[in-house]
């Protein structure tokens, strides 16, 4: 049952290794190469996240390259105990490669090395073909347009070291899959209307068969085969509509739905009812006071049809949200950087992994985490950030055991300092 078969992964990985070599060379010889700088803390539409990056171009070659890295140090205390003490974390290094193949045909890709290169993943690798601004074809490994963070996840854009909890555990960013679809934009006055719609491979049974003991779209997104085949043999649908007004900002509505279980054997024998997982997300972002204050928020709700006879630590509904408020407090020439900025911000976030009540007692189920994250960030240039965060979180279900009964939540305080930069 392999209806959707795409195997770009290996080709792209080889291609990237070659490009990396050229890139390293490029960094030395600056006469040939031209850097296209942009302030990445500013943003067009969220869906433009994949193009709106600083790239390095080579003379007249139709290829542009770039990337970013993230690293940080962390000290975390849970209920008086620091399990790991001081930890230095090299989160990830990512490489972009973009090329104009011909008029209105482009290739774009990102490959990510996580955990010091242990995990290599093609985040996206697709071809775009523009027939009309309103009608573009995209095929390959695409970022599923659900919420805003997923398509706009590059570290240097954020003043917060950790990715939002709800954007990694409720919406499992980075969520990308092999598939194709269409997108387009329509401009009118100060308005932009945009849509995106894709059919891709989707999740697998890991949503419920996992070692976390709770419903997890992220666990259903781990299968290395996901670029080769769809677990259910049915495509996942993702669609998004976004509206942007120059003054008021961008508002997006997105939806994703997929049959995630193996309901049919390869021989066509139906062995189980189809089970679906769906996500509905709203996002909004704006900047105010001459770009001195920015607000970014995303909320998502998940519905998962569970197999019958599933233990009550697995929820059939989940939700989560975050809001980031970041203000520029000083914008000045500092230490020779003309537009250096100090920013302060705060993130409020939560995720609930099991909405509902116990059928046995009628009592509510508690399976949430919430956090508040004050941040201070220094941006010497738009594409580089030094950031300092404090994270205070309360979690009702302690890792390892699912304390979903509502016992005293576990409190954690984390101090983090990190850097992230495009290169």
């Amino acid at each position, binding site marked *: 049952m392999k209806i959707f078969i795409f195997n770009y992964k290996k080709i792209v990985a080889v291609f990237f290794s070659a490009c990396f070599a050229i890139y390293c060379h490029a960094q030395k010889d600056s006469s040939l190469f031209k850097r296209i700088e942009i302030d990445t803390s500013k943003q067009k539409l969220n869906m433009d996240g994949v193009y709106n990056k600083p790239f390095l171009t080579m003379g007249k070659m139709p290829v542009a390259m770039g990337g970013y890295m993230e690293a940080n140090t962390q*000290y975390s205390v849970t209920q008086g105990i620091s399990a790991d003490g001081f930890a230095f974390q090299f989160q990830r290094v990512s490489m972009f490669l973009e090329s104009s193949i011909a008029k209105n045909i482009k290739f774009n890709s990102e490959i990510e090395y996580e955990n010091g290169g242990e995990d290599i993943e093609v985040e996206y690798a697709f071809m775009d073909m523009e027939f009309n601004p309103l009608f573009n074809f995209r095929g390959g490994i695409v970022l599923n347009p659900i919420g805003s963070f997923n398509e706009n996840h590059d570290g240097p854009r954020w003043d917060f070291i950790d990715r939002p909890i709800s954007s990694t555990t409720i919406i499992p960013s980075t969520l990308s899959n092999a598939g194709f679809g269409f997108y387009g934009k329509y401009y009118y006055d100060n308005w932009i209307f945009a849509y995106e719609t894709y059919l891709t491979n989707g999740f697998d*049974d890991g949503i419920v068969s996992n070692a976390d003991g709770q419903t997890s779209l992220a666990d259903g997104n781990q299968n290395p085969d996901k670029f080769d085949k769809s677990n259910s043999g049915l495509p996942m649908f993702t669609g998004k509509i976004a509206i942007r007004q120059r003054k008021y900002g961008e508002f997006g509505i997105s939806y994703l739905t997929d049959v995630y279980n193996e309901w049919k054997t390869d021989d066509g024998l139906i062995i189980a009812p189809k089970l679906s997982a769906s996500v509905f997300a709203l996002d909004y972002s704006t900047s105010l006071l001459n770009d001195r204050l920015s607000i970014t928020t995303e909320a998502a709700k998940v519905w998962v049809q569970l197999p019958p006879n599933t233990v009550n630590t697995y929820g059939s509904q989940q939700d989560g949200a975050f809001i980031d408020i970041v203000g520029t407090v000083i914008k000045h020439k500092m230490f020779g950087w003309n537009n250096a900025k100090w920013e302060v911000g705060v993130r409020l976030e939560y995720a609930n992994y099991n909405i509902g009540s116990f059928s046995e007692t009628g009592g509510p189920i508690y399976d949430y985490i919430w956090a508040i994250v004050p941040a201070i960030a220094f941006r010497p240039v738009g594409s580089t950030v030094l950031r300092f965060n404090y994270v205070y979180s309360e979690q009702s279900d302690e890792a390892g*055991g699912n304390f979903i009964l509502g016992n005293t939540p576990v409190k954690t*305080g984390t101090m983090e300092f990190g850097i992230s930069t495009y290169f």
Partner: protein
Amino acid sequence: MKIKQIYKVLTVVIFSVITLEACQKLFPAAPAPDNTLAVGVIPGLTPAQLQEHALGDDEFSQIFTQQQGLGPVFNNISCNNCHVGNGKGSPATALTRFGRATGRTFDSLVSENGPDLLPNAVPGYTGDVLPPDANVQVQLIAPTIMGLGFIAALADSTILANAYPHDGVAGVPNYVNPTSFFIPQAFNIPFNGQYIGRFGRKATRVSLQDQVVFALANDLGGVTCDYNMVKPYNYLVGPYTGNYVQDPDVSAGFVNHLVMYLLTNKVPPRRDSANSDVLAGAQLFTNIGCVTCHIPTMVTSTLPGFPSLSNQTIHPFSDFLLHDMGSELDGGVPEGSAQSFQWRTAPLWGVGLSPNSQGGGLFLLHDGRATSFIQAIQFHNGEASARKAAFNALTSQQQQQIVAFLNSL
């Protein structure tokens, strides 16, 4: 770019890191000791024993999946999900024990996957339903697993010393057939080939090892080990292991770590024991005769290798004997020589910490039906009727003193 300026920035950053680090308030402190759940180990263990304890701790909260051998039918996916934080469980994770009672005979319907219902199933498989010929069922909530090593170290003679009619009650031991892998201690005295059970709500398991092996198979469900290779399956569906893991699913070592963990969990400390209401309550608890069954003090025997469990004075508030608790608490399901209306005296140590693991509420007795201490006492009938009457004859202030005492345990 001036190097000096970079140093300035670095100094500022490092300085703020240090100040904020110093500000301990930003890091949540450990909960006050009286608020702790029963996490912690008994003193006097060797480094090897401590390491085994730590391994067992991890295993106790391990989430089992098909890949770890769970299923195909099961109750829950982790010991910790029922024995939350080592404390008492909630009716939300209760297990159902069933069977068929006809006159004086009882069949626990092993051929239909008895004695416990395994209602959950791995994906693609169907969970157990109550077989149509089952006519009795009882709900059981998980007891605390603290201080179990001390119970394991009690001599049979110590338990028997309180048995049979005295002071108006008549506790009886539950003599059960030992499992094939049971290795008796010097203090285990067989009677017609049977041994005194002490673990479980009807004192059906003789040793912690028995309980662990049973729990892997029935409370989790379908996890096989060297001591028990039986895979339960839904008899309505047919045999199917539901996993591709070779049996045994866990090693003998895995079982032993869990046993070590259970043996070496400490007893929770008492709280407010000098409070005047608590002291008055303790006195009343003795005066009205609750202590006939909820025996405050016992001395353990010798458990080789565990000096800190051996010859220790403990305060479990139980006699580890079965009592007729009357028809209201009759669950209809007997076990071994324990009748359906007989229950092991619930050890009351740690009972005041129950809300910490029961979601802030209180669920008492074998099925969690009582949601307050007073309610739990009102279900004391049968042998305990006279004590209940004595409790009800107290003034409400005195009753509250007993409640304060129970809360301090």
